[in-house]
């Protein structure tokens, strides 16, 4: 074994290796790490702690409530710029729910508004560097999706009793086809919470990983000196473009989650298609 690098070739090799190590240091997965900030103890074998995830949920809630209360403080008859942002968001959500589920659906308005605003603000907040992405965790999106579905099923049965089952039998289906249609409808119903949660989770996760990977390229290429710096321009532009795309995705996914929730609530309100 030689003690040190002796040839230029080996020198170069080591530089490459160190660049690779540099790139390794930019771990695109690390950002999703849940860390315990304050530990409270054990519950059923799991540690219960105030985590960075919880911190960002708290920030999200504070931002939403703070913004809404601050902007409507004046209760202006003629709204200022910020007050009209709150009003527009309110009316946008209200119209979305009313169009999807009718005026009876308005009883779920606070829930839909909470869901929409929570996901939207959490998504947008995650675009700030070093901020945690609450919605890139399947357990969070899954819990929200299950909450939606349990409200749909619970309210559907409470309001229509067994009539809620009409949801699985579309009108005007010829007799022999009914069992097959019911099976398909039932499966599609079961897949709703899965697709609802995975869509949001996967979008946020993939977006943030892509961002980190391209940002990592900039660092790795930068380690090669002037040529690398020139080469790093390309991934840098990509990072800028992907950031813009991810902000769009943040809005879009929050909207998709909310509008699907509205449609599912419509099923609970009016089970017969």
């Amino acid at each position, binding site marked *: 074994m030689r003690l040190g690098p002796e040839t230029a070739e080996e020198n170069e090799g080591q530089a490459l290796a160190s660049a690779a190590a540099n790139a390794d240091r930019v771990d695109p997965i690390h950002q999703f790490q849940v860390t315990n900030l304050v530990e409270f103890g054990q519950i059923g074998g799991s540690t219960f702690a105030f985590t960075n995830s919880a911190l960002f949920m708290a920030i999200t809630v504070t931002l939403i409530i703070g913004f809404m209360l601050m902007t409507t403080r004046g209760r202006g008859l003629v709204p200022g710029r910020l007050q009209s942002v709150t009003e527009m968001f309110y009316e946008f959500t209200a119209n979305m729910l009313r169009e999807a589920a009718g005026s009876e659906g308005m009883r779920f308005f606070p829930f839909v*508004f*909470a869901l929409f605003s929570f996901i939207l603000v959490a998504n947008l907040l995650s675009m700030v560097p070093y901020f945690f992405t609450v919605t890139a965790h399947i357990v969070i999106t899954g819990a929200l999706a299950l909450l939606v579905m349990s409200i749909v099923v619970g309210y559907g049965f409470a309001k229509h009793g067994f009539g809620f089952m009409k949801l699985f039998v579309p009108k005007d289906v010829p007799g022999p086809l009914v069992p097959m249609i019911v099976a398909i409808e039932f499966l599609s119903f079961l897949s709703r919470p899965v697709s609802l949660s995975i869509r949001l989770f996967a979008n946020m996760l993939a977006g943030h990983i892509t961002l980190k990977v391209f940002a990592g390229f900039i660092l790795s290429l930068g380690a090669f000196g002037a040529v690398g710096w020139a080469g790093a321009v390309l991934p840098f532009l990509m990072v800028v473009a992907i950031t813009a795309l991810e902000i769009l995705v943040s809005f879009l996914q929050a909207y998709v989650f909310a509008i699907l929730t509205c449609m599912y609530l419509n099923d609970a309100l009016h089970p017969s298609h």
Partner: protein
Amino acid sequence: MVTKALAQTAAETAADVAAEHGEAMEGAHGVFPPFDPSTFLSQLIWLAVFFGLLYLLLSRVALPRVATILEERNDRIADDLAEAEKLKRESEEAVAAYEQALAEARAKAHGIAQEARDKAKAEADAERSKVEADLEGKLAEAEERITEVKEKALAEVDAIAKETTQAIVSSLSGESPNEGEIARAVSQAGGERRQA
């Protein structure tokens, strides 16, 4: 014993490696963080806490406030529209009343003018008839006087004719005729003339 010690060393080494490698992934048990079940409990509890809090604050405070603001604005707009409608109706009524008063005044003015014209005409007529009556009276008087003068003149014509006849006869025949004869002849001639 030896194997146990060896196993322990191996475990320690593994832990060291894990600690070194895991500098970037502290706390991770070598799993993909979103699928790390050890964090699920904390995340779910805090999600329940904060989402519940968000729902509560939204449904109790923030959303009713926005709803009140929007409702007040809609009410105000509806009120203002109703007020504008009312004012418009009032102004239309005022215009109608004005036009009616104008028409009445015009009719009245017309009436007054007509009356004045009629009165003036009546007065003029009265004046004219009075003047005419006056003139007629004067005319009649004049005619009467003319008749009188004519009759007087005619009456004198006989006397003149008698005198003239006497003078002519006396100058022609040289003798003075009988007055009665002359008067008869004159009145006969005057009667013949009158018949012709």
